[in-house]
């Protein structure tokens, strides 16, 4: 177990993986939260109406299939789609838009994780909106608010605060499902540990160390989430 030379090899390798994980997690968490708040708010308020059905479909799509399958579809499936549409673009002299369907492992991971996370966040937000007392909407309308003004000034600030503990939970999950990026050859923390362990056969130390890195990430994320919750806390709000 105690082989200092191996640790000297392992730690830089895992640290590189750790930073790639961070680069996947931070944008995915941020994007996911933004998507979730907007989608959840639209579905919770049923406004604007024409977006409700498409968003319902979106949520069923990202919550339905296994995340692993979704990554495979985005990474391996979209290029096939690109090959299908490419002749059409070329025949009509259109700009080669199909190229965006060739995603890098990194882009595919961030895309899938953001969409997935957004779908789950949206349910927390929707639940939070349903728990806001209806009278406040009535009061806002009575003051002459338009639906849009009510949406941004009354609904969103309350819904996000109420949903925050659930959304925080989703961010913690995201940290852990970011490990699935290794299946599309992104060398993030899990991917880096995997290839290192496969080449050295030191599975125990490597994955134990990787576990510590994840524990560290989750601890930091929890701390940040709690700080934000406290910073935006309102006396008596959400505790009635």
């Amino acid at each position, binding site marked *: 177990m105690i082989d200092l030379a191996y640790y000297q090899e392992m730690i830089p390798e895992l640290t590189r993986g750790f930073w790639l994980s961070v680069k996947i997690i931070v944008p995915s968490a941020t994007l996911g939260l933004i998507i979730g708040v907007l989608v959840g708010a639209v579905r919770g308020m049923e406004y604007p109406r024409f977006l409700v059905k498409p968003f319902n479909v979106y949520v069923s799509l990202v919550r339905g299939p296994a995340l692993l399958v979704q990554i495979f579809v985005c990474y391996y499936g979209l290029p096939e789609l690109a090959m299908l549409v490419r002749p059409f673009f070329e025949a009509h002299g259109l700009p080669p838009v199909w190229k965006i369907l060739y995603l890098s492992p990194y882009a595919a991971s961030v895309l899938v994780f953001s969409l997935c996370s957004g779908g789950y966040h949206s349910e927390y937000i929707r639940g939070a909106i349903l728990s806001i*007392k209806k*009278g*406040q909407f*009535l*009061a*806002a*309308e*009575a*003051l*002459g*608010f*338009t639906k849009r*003004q009510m949406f941004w*000034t*009354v609904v969103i*600030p*309350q819904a996000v*605060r109420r949903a925050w503990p659930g959304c925080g939970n989703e961010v913690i999950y995201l940290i852990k499902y970011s490990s699935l990026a290794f299946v599309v050859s992104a060398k993030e923390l899990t991917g880096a540990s995997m290839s290192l362990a496969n080449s050295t056969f030191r599975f125990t130390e490597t994955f134990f160390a990787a576990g510590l890195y994840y524990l560290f990430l989750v601890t930091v994320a929890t701390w940040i989430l709690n700080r934000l919750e406290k910073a935006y806390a*309102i*006396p*008596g*709000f959400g*505790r*009635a």
Partner: protein
Amino acid sequence: MNQPILEVKNISKTLGGKLILDDVSLSLNRGELKVLIGPSGGGKSTLLQCIHYLINPDKGDVLLEGRSAAEMGRRNICAFRQEIGMIFQDFNLFDHLNAENNVAVALRKVKGLTKEAALKRARQELERVGLADKATLYPAQLSGGQKQRVSIARALAMDPKVMLLDEPTSALDPELIGEVLNVIVDLSKSGMTMLMATHQIGFARHLTSEIIFMERGGIAEAGPPSVLLAEGSCSRTADFCSKLTELLGKNG
């Protein structure tokens, strides 16, 4: 003085297959206070919300200074609503904003005032209802009476031409009712036009020019309190009010 500022014309509303309002008409002159009373489920709240177009009436119209709400588009309805203040039974303050921001938020978002101007106005209105020292407290930190006074300040800040009050004291315990009623008396004395649903008949009879008794979605009778509540008048209103006073005491 005799030109009505608010006219309600033949409003009907069916909700869930049940006729809630049946051809109700009334009118308010500038500076007048009228009182709606009657049993629960009689249509008082629905009528107030229809006047405000929070609920669209099935039939009928509301005229504010001669302008017809039924003919307004959705945009204009928002402007129409700004001119009518509404006070709810359970206050409906925005839980995430403190007292001064509860008052200021509509000034900023709806009237487009700057933050400073809106907060300045909000503090003036809070002072008017005697809450200058509570401006930074959140709804959860205020008593029921204070919450209702904040909601009155919030409505007043929009400079409404008419105020609709839907049982403003029903959710308050007896010791807190007085502070809200005082604000309403002051408002009435300052010339605000008001239509108030209430059970505080002992209080209302001295302020109001007309009592409107609503039952089963219609106006059962209407008239000045001196007539409806006269000794031995045998009116439906007098009967109802005597039951209230039996339960609540003379000033109830």
